[in-house]
């Protein structure tokens, strides 16, 4: 690798959070026009390292040099001034402001009278969004966008900074294949323009597609650096996890039981329309006991909304069609009702709808099941501890103590906590919305293994995911949604990612195989 024109050089970077050493003695460099992938398990220290580079974290050990000049940032603004921009993992946008306002926040465009030039901001925002392949009204408040759309807005925002160094911390975790493709086009353009890009992702297939170089962190330390085109997935994963990981995906288990869930022509007309929501408009599907059924679709196909309807948290309004659980028609009235019937739900946005970030791991893990550990409304302390330790073990949760705040866990481990909470309610049917978003490959394997295990015990799973390999690898069957309807159903035994994507995009769509050798 040519180390000649290092744009950024970080040397012996160290950072502690209390007892946790997020980074130790990390050396990292980035050249102009280079896409440098940063890999590692959840909690390996990737985000921390990049927050240091982008001026978000200011108390650290070690040295940063930009163009061979030592720098020390007092905050994100300093880093931006030095040409460093970052797309944060936890989409940090202002919900009440419009897309354009968010993109230009802190550096608004002005008219000659020093007032905000709204029209120009809208125009430029639209152009930026189109460049990343999104059609979005820049005047819409960000709060009403889908997670995926928000992610695209943060990308547009980062691109608009015209940075020399662009850090992308899991920019695609909520995107589906076609949006990812568009992003890669943009990345290649930027690379050609000499921008140095740090690319963090847990989607292994993406690394080989875009990265020129990859560095693996484990427990805050660099373990290896390599050319991603030359290593196999298994080797990369072994470097990340520190031991060989065998099969990524459980082989679909054909031995399924009785019909657990049947959805017949479900449609919902919300009383109050919310822009951007795609409510079920005629969906039929079934899930058998022991079966893992995938839900595929493009951004906004209505997967999330279907799961929300099944869990009873969709907006009110007349609905048609039927939902049958074990042959009996149900009308889920809300989470309590659904949980009581044995339906569990893992929402897609763990920070906003999954966790109380500043409460302990323990409290978050047992939140849905706490009454069952005691009697007379008193918490059974020992039993709840035992239950959450058991669950942490089972999910291989990486944590310090059960009392630690859940917000200090790495993203993937946070996801496991939400997952564990639902498992503790002993559901019959598990509704999962992007359950592995931001989860590292090792932990994903754990989750898949667990899903297989649970399915083996007769649990039915409905899994919405934007990761095609995951759907194909984990599910027995995949139902494809488009515009709130089911348009196709595939058995994963005899169809691949290409079939799913073609169905998701609709007829006539030309599908170009993504993913090279990895």
């Amino acid at each position, binding site marked *: 690798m040519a180390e000649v024109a290092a744009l950024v050089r970080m040397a012996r970077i160290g950072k502690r959070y209390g007892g946790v050493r997020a980074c130790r003695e990390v050396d990292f460099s980035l050249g102009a026009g280079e896409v440098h992938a940063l890999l590692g398990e959840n909690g390996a220290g990737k985000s921390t390292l990049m927050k240091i580079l982008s001026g*978000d974290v200011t108390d650290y050990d070690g040295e940063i040099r930009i163009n061979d000049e030592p720098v020390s940032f007092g*905050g*994100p*603004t300093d880093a*931006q001034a030095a040409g460093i921009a*970052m797309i*944060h993992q936890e989409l*940090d*946008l*202002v*919900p*009440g*402001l*419009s897309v354009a*306002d*968010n993109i230009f*926040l*802190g*550096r*608004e465009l*002005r008219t000659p009278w020093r*007032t*905000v030039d*709204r029209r120009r901001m809208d125009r430029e925002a639209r152009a930026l969004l189109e460049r990343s392949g999104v059609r979005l009204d820049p*005047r*819409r*408040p960000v*709060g*009403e966008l889908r997670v995926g759309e928000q992610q695209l807005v943060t990308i547009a925002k980062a691109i608009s900074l015209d940075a020399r160094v662009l850090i992308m911390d899991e920019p695609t975790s909520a995107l589906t294949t076609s949006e990812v493709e568009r992003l890669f086009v943009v990345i290649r353009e930027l690379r050609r323009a000499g921008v140095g890009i740090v690319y963090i992702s847990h989607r292994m297939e993406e690394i080989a597609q875009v990265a020129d170089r990859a560095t693996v962190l484990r427990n805050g330390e660099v373990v290896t650096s390599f050319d991603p085109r030359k290593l196999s997935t298994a080797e990369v994963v072994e470097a990340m996890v520190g031991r060989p990981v065998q099969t990524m995906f459980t082989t679909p288990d054909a031995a399924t039981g009785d019909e657990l869930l049947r959805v017949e022509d479900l449609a919902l007309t919300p009383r*109050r329309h*919310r*822009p*951007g929501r795609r409510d079920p408009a005629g969906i039929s599907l079934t899930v058998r006991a022991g079966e893992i059924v995938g839900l595929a679709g493009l951004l906004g196909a209505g997967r999330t909304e279907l799961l929300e309807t099944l869990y009873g948290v969709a907006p009110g309004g007349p609905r048609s069609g039927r939902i049958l659980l074990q042959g009996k028609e149900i009308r889920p009235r809300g989470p309590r009702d659904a949980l009581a019937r044995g339906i569990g739900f893992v929402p897609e946005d763990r920070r906003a709808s999954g966790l109380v970030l500043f409460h302990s791991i323990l409290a978050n893990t047992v939140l849905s099941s706490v009454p069952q550990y005691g009697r007379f409304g008193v918490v059974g302390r020992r039993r709840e501890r035992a239950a959450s330790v058991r669950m942490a073990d089972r999910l291989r949760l990486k944590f310090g103590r059960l009392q630690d705040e859940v917000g200090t866990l790495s993203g993937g481990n946070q996801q496991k906590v939400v997952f564990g909470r639902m498992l503790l309610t002993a559901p019959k049917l598990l509704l999962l919305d992007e359950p592995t978003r931001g989860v590292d490959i090792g932990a994903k394997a754990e989750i898949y293994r667990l899903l297989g295990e649970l399915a083996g015990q007769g649990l039915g799973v409905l899994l919405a995911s934007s990761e095609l390999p995951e759907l194909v690898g984990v599910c027995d069957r995949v139902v494809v949604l488009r515009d709130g309807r089911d348009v196709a159903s595939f058995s994963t035994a005899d169809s691949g990612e290409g079939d799913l994507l073609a169905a998701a995009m609709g007829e006539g769509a030309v599908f170009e195989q993504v993913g090279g050798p990895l």
Partner: protein
Amino acid sequence: MTDVQDKPAAIAETGGGVVATLFRFQSVFGLLAVFVAAIIFSPRRDGQILFVSADNLANVVRAVSEIGIIAVGMTFVILIGGIDLSVGAVLGLAAVGSAVLMVESDWGFLPSVVVVLLIGLVFGALQGMATSMIGIQSFIVTLAGLQIARGLARIWSDGQGVAIAYGDGPDEAPESFAILGERTFGGLVPIPVLIFAVVAIAAVVFLRVSAFSRHLYAVGGNEKAARLSGVPVTRVKIAVFAVCGLLAALAGIVHAVQLNQGSPNDGIGYELDAIAAVVIGGTSLAGGRGSVAGTVAGALLLGVLNNILALNNIDSNIQLLIKGLVIVAAAALQRLRPTS
């Protein structure tokens, strides 16, 4: 406190298009309803509806002008996710200040007004610093600020209201000050109303066109995002509390001129009225969404309500009940606005 049940909604000042217009309309919905009710329930004389007489309407707006001016500043503070309980006390301090400076210290009109406004500004800024730099919740900072401002006002005035008489004598205030309490445009529009209108319009325009307003919404909507985007969060907070203090002081001057005295007990409880106006106007106490236009509507709603209850000579206890219920109803109406 975060009332998390608050559903997301478009904000009027920054969102464009139909939704925003609709929302703006919604924020005056309660006001319209109360206005119509006022006409219906207004006593009549010689076939004339007393409520809608020009004179009475001027009175209604004059009576809300102080709360209205304060509420504009409060809107800013609430938009950044804070609250300011000290405004009533700062009003009292400013009223005392103008009276003491002009009457007892025999200062001129302009220096007195400027110094009083500065006092409000600095007091607000100090509170902003305590909350943004030390990180104490603004509720508690301004609760303390309330006591401090009240204490200062009492000490400054020796605990007694300072009467304002006009003239050139040593114990008299300049006549120019009295003008602030008079009426203009053919005796129709009281100057306090004019001041309120100017403040409100300036605030609305400011929120629509300035870059600072984007920062303000950002700080209230997602402080971390704001910080990461390079918004000077601390500076925004200090500025907002300073402006709120300044406006409270302005209201205090208006108060003093209207009542011909500055008393340390002026403005007790005004903070709650101002907050009620803001919230009825559709601004979320969680920060990040709301508008000054809504606040003005909210203040007028409260004013119309007070006026119609008084015109009908409703028993003061029943008035309390009715006001409570109308406030809840107005807030409930707000919930009907289109959500995203």
